């Protein structure tokens, strides 16, 4: 499902060459299909970079990475958009499109996948109801609170029922009851077969919902199930 084999990552400079030290070193681990994994580690350990590799925002500079059975290093560039559509991502900074309404932001992955508008309306209405934002469907993200924006980002990540769901600090702007509700959604998606990786600092949440964890420190895996 997801396989890291001695994967290293260094960010490239403007010339295209790797500039500066590697941020991830020799990562080797597997995440089987349909499991739930916490991704833990102190700030600056490389959690966000690791997630970026998994959602194909960057390619590794060394080693082999395969996501949803596709070897990312060998795949042709044209094959990646289809792969990205099978991955849902909740970004730490939400990354909503400011000029689109809540409804259109959530509908975006379905429209990119070419789904019919009737189905899109049903799916978006359902997920907005689930995250409690039905009344805000016509609002722009700027008119929402941080917690509401995070719920829009979550709705957008799960609306297309991805095979792999990656979340970077998804509870950072949620209160405890909303965070619990989000965990219920993740468990529900996991139960129907979605592979889920959640990076978090929320120790209380991790202790309440025990699951195997990948631990990163200074760009290296120190503990993997």
């Amino acid at each position, binding site marked *: 499902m997801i396989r890291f084999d001695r994967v290293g990552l260094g960010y490239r400079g403007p010339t295209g060459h790797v500039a500066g030290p590697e941020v991830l070193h020799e990562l080797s681990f597997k995440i089987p299909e349909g499991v739930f994994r916490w991704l833990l580690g102190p700030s600056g350990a490389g959690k966000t970079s690791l997630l970026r590799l998994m959602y194909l925002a960057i390619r590794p500079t060394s080693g082999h990475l395969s996501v949803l059975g596709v070897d990312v290093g060998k795949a042709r560039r044209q094959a990646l958009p289809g792969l*990205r559509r099978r991955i849902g991502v909740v970004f730490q900074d939400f990354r909503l499109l400011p000029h689109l309404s809540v409804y*259109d932001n959530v509908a*975006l992955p379905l429209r990119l996948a070419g789904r019919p508008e009737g189905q899109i309306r049903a799916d978006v209405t359902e997920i907005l109801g689930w995250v409690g934002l039905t009344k805000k*469907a016509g609002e722009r993200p700027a008119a929402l609170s941080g917690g509401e924006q995070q719920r829009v980002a979550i709705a957008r990540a799960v609306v297309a029922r991805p095979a792999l769901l990656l979340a970077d600090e998804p509870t950072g702007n949620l209160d405890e009851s909303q965070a619990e509700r989000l965990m219920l959604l993740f468990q529900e998606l996991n139960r129907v077969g979605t592979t889920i990786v959640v990076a978090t600092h929320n120790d209380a949440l991790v202790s309440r919902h025990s699951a195997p964890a990948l631990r990163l420190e200074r760009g290296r895996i120190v503990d993997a199930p």
Partner: protein
Amino acid sequence: MTRLGRRTRLLRPARFDELGLKRALTARMLPFMVAAMAFLAALTLAGWVGVASLARHWQEGAGTSLTVQVPEPRNPASQGGENRIRRVLDLLSGTPEVADAHALSDDELGDLLRPWLGTGSERTALPLPAVIAVRLANPDADLAALGRRLDGVAPGTLMEAHDIWIRRLSALARSLQACAGIALLTVAAVASAVIAVATRAGLAARREAIEIVHGLGATDGYIAAQFARRATLLAAVGGLAGALAALPVLLGLASLAAPFTGVQSQETNPDVLAALPSILWVALPILPVAAACIGFLTAQATVRRWLHTLP
């Protein structure tokens, strides 16, 4: 808002603008620049057509002709008892290389001289030669021998072949047409550069939105199509505006040029639109289409090249 109103708003708009390009590629600068290019292209095209038509006119009118001037035409010829002009005409008619020889009447001579001597040229006191327009059956005829024979019957007769001038004018016309072609290509290249710069500015302004949509699985083709649709529309609007702005200028030039190209002048033909060569009526509507094509292709190429910086 009513329940129905809210539902309607939730439907996808016909022209859904995911990337917010209406604000990134604005309808101000780009159409204006493309309109200026289309205006220049229209003038250049008109120049090209005008030169082509003048060159054709000259060639048709004088391609195989000679002008023979006979001074003191009414004086008796050196032999044969007739006057000089009659003898020269007889000699020309009897020459197999000559297809037609026609002595210009006083009115026709007056027409020729009017630009220099005014409308009273036929009453001038100057001793005017008779002028014979000769059309050659064989353009390779030995003109030197013909000239010697003409001088024999009417000394002082001058013969002027036009072909050297036609060759020079044709070379000039071809050079002017080549310049017009280069100017057209330059205008197209500048239009393309303007659209590329505007597209790059749009890419920079919408970088974050593009990265988000790209991350959600949009293909290069999908993103490039959004930009290309917008650039095509703006370039077509600019092209149309430029062509429309050039129309009155071209009509004015065409009615000025009409007397030289054989088309009736504006005084006798009040239909101004008919003065414009028909090829320009075809070329002008092509300008917005050409601008739209340049807009589409430039935006596609620029966006696709830029997207290759993303994984």
